[in-house]
């Protein structure tokens, strides 16, 4: 573990190596590729929330000149049930197939039914409108309360609740129950002087990436099929498509385009298998498919709506004695909400003896949820942190002090079993308390909220080849789609390890055929795990260069020392630069490339603490965020600007979740706000500057101390913002979003 002061390049704010292309419009994203002979594909989507498909008649569409192919669920070869990697979690292959194209039953407004390829986009759209479908409508199930009620309409006749002691006799909309305990929850509440219990609601939200899903697929009978798409994990796209279409992995190349945001939502497939089937049915002509914004909202993404009950007890001195939660998460139309992850995270910032959490994964007639930045944690933390802040207020304690008094530290046992290794929660809380923001006094109609957040972070498989060029520069061949500037960090880590300037290294995100398997960019793993693979590849190169020098000098390799890109004979005075060794590599055994293929362990969790000040217009209910500070443990910030950017971006998304964002459905289960005008993500004019404070408590299991930083920043803002509103209007907030209409209701009910 290097001392933080020893770094030469790490911690500097270098210009990102992909910057020129991104500010000039040259960078190619998902929808930017055009191939010769290319067709356009369009999906036909359900106009109903829940219905049986009685009949599909495509004859008029087929007769339209320019229509080349039509595909339905029937074109999937029989799909066996198997888990396929999807970001931080996995997805059941049968559910994946039935989500991509409905199998006899549509389960949400926008559920895809069939795909059509035609010579132009306009013809494909026209053909979609010519398909006739007869539906038998079923009652939509749109809320957790309705879904779990006795006699509820069932989405799936074959869904039986997992996680119960005995297999239930009847099918249910509850897919999974999971639970975690430690200590004795009843004894914990008996020991409490004050207890607060509340039930919270968070609505369905969308990741809101600005780039819609897009791909180009080209089928080839000789096993040279390819897909170009915007994805967080092109290896997972390859695995999913190959599985659904019964292909071997070597028959399909997937290239990750530049990606215009994902936040977890681009860890699965929607269009890609359909485009490849359409290409096959069109004789191998490439097929391009691009979702419009309405399709993005209706059929991709969303994050779970939740109903969470939380009960916390504490002694008068501020010691928390018991924490209990009952968490219901909507999965959308198919099982797989992050309820369990929410349960693991909700009380993670607290070293409390008695805890009890029960989690439920509930299906409803909404789009199948996808991962959304720290999946499951923001909703749970909203509920947990609101109650902790209320306890602090009841005890007349500073909300940071109560969190410090009960803080998780190294050695605290997590509710899910293991003990935490070194963590930086106390350091984050202390930094928040000492921040200029926290010292500032509030004015009338203003309120302040504090909240903590925890995310595990993951490591996983990364593969890197560092190819040295004859001039001594290096190409970093990695396979982690760069979603937020990670190539800048990769360059800095290679530079640090080699002791050579960053501009000597060019990172590229290779396709699935030009680098070995990489897990997707998710779980805040890329800078941590792919960075470790780069360090390993760089060490491999250094070792080889030393051996080449030893051969040239006819000495033992151990006598060769590496000093900042120069090898030195410690038993003489010869020196050779890396460039000289690489230029002469043909005479010493061939060109040099280093390899780092790893399954990284030891990802360090990252705690975050946010402080939010709001001002509420009590006449209209409008909330303005007037000051915001995001504190988070980075372990070691490789590129501080992009670390700050993660904190600020997470905060902004969380503020949107707290204040405005929600899916609004009508009584028929149809989405009413599938556009950016009515689904309002934060604008530049909605936000203040967001102070980012980087805390660095090194992760001892990473060579540079790195912790993932991408996700924890979205966990605290829901409660930090909502509690600030509650503090300003002197009334409890239990439902999100704190939109003007909702806040005004709370104000009026409280008078």
């Amino acid at each position: 573990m290097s001392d933080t002061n020893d770094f030469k390049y790490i911690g500097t704010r270098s210009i990102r190596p992909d910057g020129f292309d991104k500010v000039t419009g040259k960078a190619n994203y998902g929808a930017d590729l055009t191939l010769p002979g290319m067709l356009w594909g369009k999906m036909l989507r359900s106009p109903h929330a829940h219905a049986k498909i009685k009949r599909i008649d495509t004859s008029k569409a087929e007769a339209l000149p320019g229509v080349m192919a039509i595909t339905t669920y029937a074109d999937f070869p029989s799909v066996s049930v198997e888990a396929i990697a999807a970001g931080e979690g996995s997805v059941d292959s049968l559910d994946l197939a039935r989500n991509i194209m409905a199998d006899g039953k549509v389960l949400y407004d926008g559920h895809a039914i069939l795909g059509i390829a035609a010579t132009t986009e306009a013809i494909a759209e026209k053909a979609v409108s010519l398909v006739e479908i007869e539906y038998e409508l079923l009652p939509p199930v749109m809320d957790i309360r309705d879904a779990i009620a006795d006699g509820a309409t069932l989405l799936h006749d074959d869904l039986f609740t997992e996680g119960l002691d005995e297999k239930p006799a009847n099918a249910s909309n509850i897919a999974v129950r999971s639970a975690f305990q430690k200590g004795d929850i009843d004894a914990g509440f008996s020991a409490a002087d004050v207890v607060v219990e509340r039930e919270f609601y968070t609505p369905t939200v969308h990741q809101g990436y600005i780039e819609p899903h897009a791909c180009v697929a080209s089928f080839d009978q000789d096993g040279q099929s390819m897909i170009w798409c915007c994805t967080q994990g092109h290896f997972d796209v390859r695995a999913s498509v190959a599985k659904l279409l019964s292909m071997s992995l070597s028959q399909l190349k997937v290239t990750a385009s530049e990606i215009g945001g994902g936040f977890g939502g681009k860890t699965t497939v929607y269009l890609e298998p359909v485009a490849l089937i359409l290409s096959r049915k069109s004789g191998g002509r490439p097929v391009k498919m691009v979702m419009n914004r309405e399709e993005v909202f209706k059929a991709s993404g969303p994050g779970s709506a939740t109903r969470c009950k939380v009960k916390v007890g504490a002694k008068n001195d501020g010691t928390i004695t018991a924490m209990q939660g009952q968490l219901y998460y909507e999965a959308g139309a198919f099982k797989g909400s992050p309820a369990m992850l929410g349960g693991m995270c909700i009380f993670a910032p607290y070293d409390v003896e008695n805890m009890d959490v029960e989690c439920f994964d509930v299906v409803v007639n909404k789009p199948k949820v996808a991962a959304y930045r720290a999946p499951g944690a923001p909703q749970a933390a909203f509920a947990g942190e609101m109650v902790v802040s209320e306890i602090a207020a009841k005890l007349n304690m500073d909300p940071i002090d109560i969190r410090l008094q009960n803080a998780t530290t190294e050695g605290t046992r997590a509710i899910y079993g293991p003990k935490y290794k070194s963590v930086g929660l106390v350091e984050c809380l202390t930094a928040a308390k000492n921040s200029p923001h926290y010292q500032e006094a509030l004015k009338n109609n203003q309120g302040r909220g504090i909240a903590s957040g925890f995310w595990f972070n993951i490591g996983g498989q990364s593969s890197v080849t560092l190819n040295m060029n004859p001039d001594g520069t290096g190409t970093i061949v990695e396979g982690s789609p760069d979603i937020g500037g990670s190539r800048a960090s990769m360059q800095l880590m290679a530079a640090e390890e080699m002791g050579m300037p960053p501009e000597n290294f060019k990172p590229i995100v290779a396709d699935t055929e030009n680098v070995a398997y990489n897990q997707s960019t998710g779980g805040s793993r890329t800078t941590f795990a792919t960075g470790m693979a780069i360090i390993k590849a760089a060490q491999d190169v250094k070792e080889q260069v030393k051996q080449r020098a030893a051969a040239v000098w006819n000495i033992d390799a151990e006598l060769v020392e590496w000093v900042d890109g120069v090898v030195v004979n410690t038993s003489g005075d010869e020196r050779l630069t890396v460039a000289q060794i690489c230029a002469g590599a043909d005479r010493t055994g061939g060109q040099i490339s280093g390899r780092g293929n790893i399954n990284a362990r030891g990802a360090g969790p990252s705690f975050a603490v946010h402080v939010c000040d709001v001002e509420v217009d009590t006449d209209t209910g409008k909330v303005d965020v007037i000051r915001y500070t995001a504190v988070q443990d980075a372990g070691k910030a490789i590129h501080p600007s992009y670390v700050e950017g993660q904190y600020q971006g997470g905060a902004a998304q969380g503020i949107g979740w707290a204040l405005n964002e929600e899916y609004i459905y009508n009584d028929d289960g149809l989405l009413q706000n599938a556009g950016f005008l009515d689904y309002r993500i934060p604008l530049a004019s909605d936000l203040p500057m967001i102070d980012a404070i980087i805390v660095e408590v090194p992760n001892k299991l990473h060579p540079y101390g790195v912790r993932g930083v991408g996700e924890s920043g979205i966990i605290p803002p829901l409660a930090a913002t909502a509690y600030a509103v509650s503090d300003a209007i002197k009334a409890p907030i239990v439902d999100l979003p704190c939109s003007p209409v909702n806040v005004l209701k709370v104000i009026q009910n409280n008078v």
Partner: protein
Amino acid sequence: MPKIHVNTIVNGDAVEFLCEPNETVLDVLRNELQLTGTKEGCSSGDCGACSITVDDRLVCSCLVLAAEAEGKVIGTIEGVADKDQLHIIQQKFLEHAALQCGICTPGLVVSVQALLKESPNPTEDEARLYLAGNLCRCTGYDKIIRAVMDAAETMRGAA
């Protein structure tokens, strides 16, 4: 219905194209002229990723019919840099790390250029309001606004 023949100037180049009556400037830029730097995020004028200038007026190219481009002067992201010399705004975006995924960046750069042309010395609030039509989901706007203010100051110094 026959296609419409349009003559226009794009980033200083004389350009002619054929379009359907219902096609937008965005469709033509991306699919006919292969100028894919202008991005499509919503096709309803809500996200600003497709921002361009038409006769120096900042517009969402998804809301302008291609046929309306006849005789007009169009500016897109591809025309902002002076050959290999980045515009100060582009340079400041890079220095301030004002982009993460970068999909909103072309539209933002075009909008910021229009802002600073109209108002070379904007306050932070003015900049935020002017750019309220350009959605960014990654950055929280902090570094974008810092880049804009820095670019404005540098451009005033250079003028």
